């Protein structure tokens, strides 16, 4: 475990160095991240010029939830590039052969072989938004909350990763492009709004089937001090672990089927 962590730091340092060699790309990535964050903010700001609240949630609360959403979302996006092209790069072209010869967890390698550093930096925008909205809401945040906040964030990242590792593992059974990954990825927009706005079926789906609501709304409510959602918020790390365990199961089952691309 400690070895994996040290290696992760090395991977990150390498990616950062490679990125800094092409600064224009880094800037381009940052600009596009910031532009889309700004667009989402403009949406919230403009809508709340017309209404005082959204199902009882104020403007600043929604901005806070959006800020929280950005942190696990950016971490996941930064490390998920290889899940998107897993079928193509690792199964069809057989790069997984190379990965499997190394004495290191294969999923760990696949996730970290491509890291989009600029996306990680975009996550800082989320922290800034949480700080800004939290101050306006006069949220009572103490240092003791930080470990829990960290656990919630890790839980949210695990939810994303678990879902997408499972979807990427489908490639072990079929190498045809199903298009399922972009489809599910786009569901992230549902996670960052209060579940009260959805009907019963959708709420059930987003909580128990594809637990997208645990990537933003539920955990963010913890600091917003909404008693109604407290138990959901606190369940985030457990849900993350459960989803990730399912993803790992699919991954390991797939690995056992993998026969390599050569003859």
């Amino acid at each position, binding site marked *: 475990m400690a070895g994996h962590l040290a290696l992760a730091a090395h991977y990150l340092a390498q990616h950062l160095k490679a990125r800094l060699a092409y600064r*224009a790309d880094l800037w381009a990535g940052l600009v596009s991240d910031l532009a889309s964050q*700004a667009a989402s903010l403009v949406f919230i700001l403009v*809508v709340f010029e017309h209404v005082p609240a959204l199902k009882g949630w104020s403007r600043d609360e929604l901005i806070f939830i959006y800020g929280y959403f950005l942190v696990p979302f950016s971490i996941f996006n930064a490390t998920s590039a290889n899940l998107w092209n897993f079928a193509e790069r690792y199964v069809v072209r057989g790069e997984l052969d190379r990965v499997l010869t190394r004495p290191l967890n294969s999923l760990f390698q696949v996730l970290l072989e491509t890291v989009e550093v600029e996306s990680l930096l975009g996550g800082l925008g989320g922290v800034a938004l949480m700080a800004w909205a939290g101050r306006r809401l006069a949220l009572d945040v103490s240092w003791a909350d930080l470990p829990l906040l960290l656990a919630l964030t890790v839980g949210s990242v695990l939810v994303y990763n678990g879902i997408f590792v499972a979807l990427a593992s489908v490639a072990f059974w079929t190498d045809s492009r199903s*298009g399922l990954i972009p489809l599910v990825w786009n569901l992230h927009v549902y996670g960052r*709004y209060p579940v009260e706005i959805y009907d019963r079926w959708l709420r059930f789906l987003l909580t128990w089937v594809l637990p997208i609501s645990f990537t933003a709304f539920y955990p963010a409510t913890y600091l917003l001090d909404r008693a109604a959602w407290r138990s959901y918020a606190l369940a985030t790390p457990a849900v993350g672990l459960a989803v990730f365990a399912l993803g790992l199961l699919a991954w390991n089952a797939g690995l056992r089927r993998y026969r390599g691309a050569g003859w």
Partner: protein
Amino acid sequence: MLHPAYVELARSRFLTLLAYRENFWTGIAVYIVYIGAYHFLWQAIYEGREALGGLTPAQMTSYLAVAWMARAFYFNHLDREIAAEIRDGRVAIELIRPYNYLAAKLAAALGEGVFRLVFFALPGMAVACALFPVRLPPAQVWPAFFLALFLSYWVNALVNVLTGLAAFFLLDNSGLMHARRVLVDLFSGLYLPLSFYPAWAREVLGFLPFQAIAYLPNLAFAGGLRGGALARALAVQALWIGVLALAAAALWRVAHRRLAVQGG
């Protein structure tokens, strides 16, 4: 202007994409996901209010559905294609071909647009109508709506051409192209009808071409534009096509002169 070569370029792009038509079901599903998200969000925002920004809740859902499906038609990667050809020098080959480069690009992209209209936007709209309470406009609005939609393709394509040509002048225009995509989605009224913006912002947006890409045709579809207002909207679109086409031609001429192709 409408040389058969350009028609052929549009046709061949259409036929190329025909081989990949199965890939478009995910595109439809993704757009339905977005329409759904914003539909629920807007219903919660209205929460019993009869109208916001001049639109009723039912009109808003129709606006959203048509906004995404119209985007499926007018959206293209013309800027990326042009920038890539400039970056790797393929543009030199294009220059010795007996056609106008930009017109050829626009024609091929229109072929793609027609393909997306037939295999993406129209079936997608049928799905949206089945899932969400979308209200279709009365028969007499359809011709004007399709005309507005056709014009919106040209406005968007010309904006893309301009950002793509920036590759001649910037070492790296990918940031500009990303920002362009987000700005167009935001300021064209894809997420948010422009009538929601505060007065000063509406004033500014009224002087920009983006409203001609989405807001005007979508509003026509949702029943927010009638008679004289509709005619005025079409005129605004036509005006922007003229202005942007002149700008693209001018930029192309300047870029052409700066072009230095490496190697022989």
